[in-house]
């Protein structure tokens, strides 16, 4: 048993050093992960849906003063509650564009409840965002939540009007 323990410890000692140590600090040169560059050069799902379509939820977050504005739209199938399509438009840096592009890719084909669990840390890890760019992934998470909320409130409004109509009919009759 001790031999096993010593092998484990030795194994750790002989592991080769990491080829690239993570450089942290204020003066670090910023490196774009190739995924960010890829999303920037070939953005997926750029576009717009009709805002007034009842199946579409629109999330508009951010502010031009902060340098980041994201508009994320989802098209939901009423019966199954599944997101069938998504698109985005972003005013912001490369990391913001990539974060929102990734967000549209991840929400497609999922349930509206499921996408609310997407965390900004997952987006940041997928794109290897440096600490100074984490707010971009936060904004993407906010955009998803805002889009789902918008869709839900649209559905609630249309349901309420549907219920009001038969009640009136019954009252008339």
């Amino acid at each position, binding site marked *: 048993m001790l031999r096993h323990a010593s092998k484990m410890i030795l194994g750790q000692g002989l592991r080769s050093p990491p080829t690239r140590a993570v450089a942290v600090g204020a003066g670090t040169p910023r490196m774009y992960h190739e995924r960010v560059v890829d999303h920037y050069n070939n953005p997926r799902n750029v576009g717009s849906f009709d805002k007034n379509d009842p199946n579409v939820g629109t999330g508009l977050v*951010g502010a031009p003063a902060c*340098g980041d504005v994201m508009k994320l739209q989802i098209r939901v199938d009423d019966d199954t509650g599944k997101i069938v399509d998504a698109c985005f*438009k*972003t005013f912001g840096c490369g990391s913001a564009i990539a974060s929102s592009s990734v967000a549209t890719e991840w929400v497609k084909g999922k349930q509206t409840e499921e996408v609310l669990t997407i965390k900004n840390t997952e987006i940041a890890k997928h794109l290897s965002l440096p600490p100074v760019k984490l707010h971009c992934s936060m904004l993407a998470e906010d955009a998803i939540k805002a889009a789902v909320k918008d869709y839900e409130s649209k559905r609630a409004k249309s349901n309420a009007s549907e219920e009001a109509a038969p009640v009136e009919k019954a009252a008339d009759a």
Partner: protein
Amino acid sequence: MASKHLATALHRSFRKPAAGTTLINRHSLSTATATAIEPLEEDSNGVTMKGVKISGRPLYLDMQATSPVDPRVLDAMLPYYLSRYGNPHSRTHLYGWESENAVESGRAQVAALINASPKEIIFTSGATESNNISTKGVMHFYKDKKRHVITTQTEHKCVLDSCRHLQQEGFDVTYLPVNPDGLVDLEKLRESIRPDTGLISVMMVNNEIGVIQPMEEIGKICKEFNVPLHTDAAQALGKIPIDVDKMNISLMSLSGHKIYGPKGIGALYMRRRPRIRVEPQMNGGGQERGIRSGTVPTPLVVGFGAACELAMKEMEYDDKRIKALQERLLNGIREKIDGVVVNGSTERRYAGNLNLSFAYVEGESLLMGLKEVAVSSGSACTSASLEPSYVLRALGVDEDMAHTSIRYGIGRFTTEGEIDRAVELTVKQVEKLREMSPLYEMVKEGIDIKSIQWSQH
């Protein structure tokens, strides 16, 4: 006993370094450390660095950051590295004498460009050091009588930081606001002068937006109130005519690497009549009249001098050429896209600096797409904080426009082909990013962006 066996086995393994580290340790002259210094990979297909692949070296349009060394300047410098390498302060042999001669002729060349006497030029390591000596040195010398400094909000960081340092020491500093076109308001300047004002510092040509301040008028005001005038002329030297007597300048900071000279050298002009005194920031053997101790780097001084002489000869020719290129750039871009704003005054500006804002497109994302053109941005994302450039803020540029600026620097070696290619790439990227921009979409639909309540976070 078993634990002893474990301990010895561990010791044996730790004494033998892992294969990777021995290679690194044996590498002599290796500038690679364990942290992330990524080498540039060049092959026949192009250049890859930081995950970005481009087909060749980018076009250089960032002349305000630095400039290439003119080959004629390099020719002048090389003998002083290889054969005439003496220390100019060695008084006892030929090497020292010839080196001193070279330094003195370089000094004369620099002085000629600004209409000063060679005795008024002190060599330093750059404009930053000269700015430090001017602000802190002057105020420390006159600290008993003078406690107030006036400067502008658009000064270079080194001046602003030196003034902040002075504030911490107990001096008063007035940071004058500028008009939306970037120029200093002369009335406000006049009003802010106090009896105990020891220095007024206004940069001649701004490095970010390229506006030229009205130095002669400011000089007149300073003469009237008898306050020394310091100017940071790093971007102005060799590009616009400078006359220290006409402008009544007492102290001027100069930089070598902005006028096609070597990096690491600058100068400080200090007026002798009336004499302005400073407290030295570098103590030592008393070189450079006791103002700046340290061996004067002969090859750099020779290069700086040669660059100044060339600038004097070619200033007019360069100016005409650069103006034409600037118009070509601006018109080329304006023909294809709208919503292009020039930051800073269009009349009083140095032609080689064009700072443009593209509405509804963010600066850093545009830079990311302009990888084949080396330009710079005043946008927030390129700085460590989320704040946009303080110069653009001082101009009163709208918050959303402040994130959208790009600075193009045109110089002596910029060609028409480079400008055309830059126009082409810029237009392409801006159009692509506007497609992706929700703000552009809203504007096209007729929504007024300023009326929307944004959810700040």
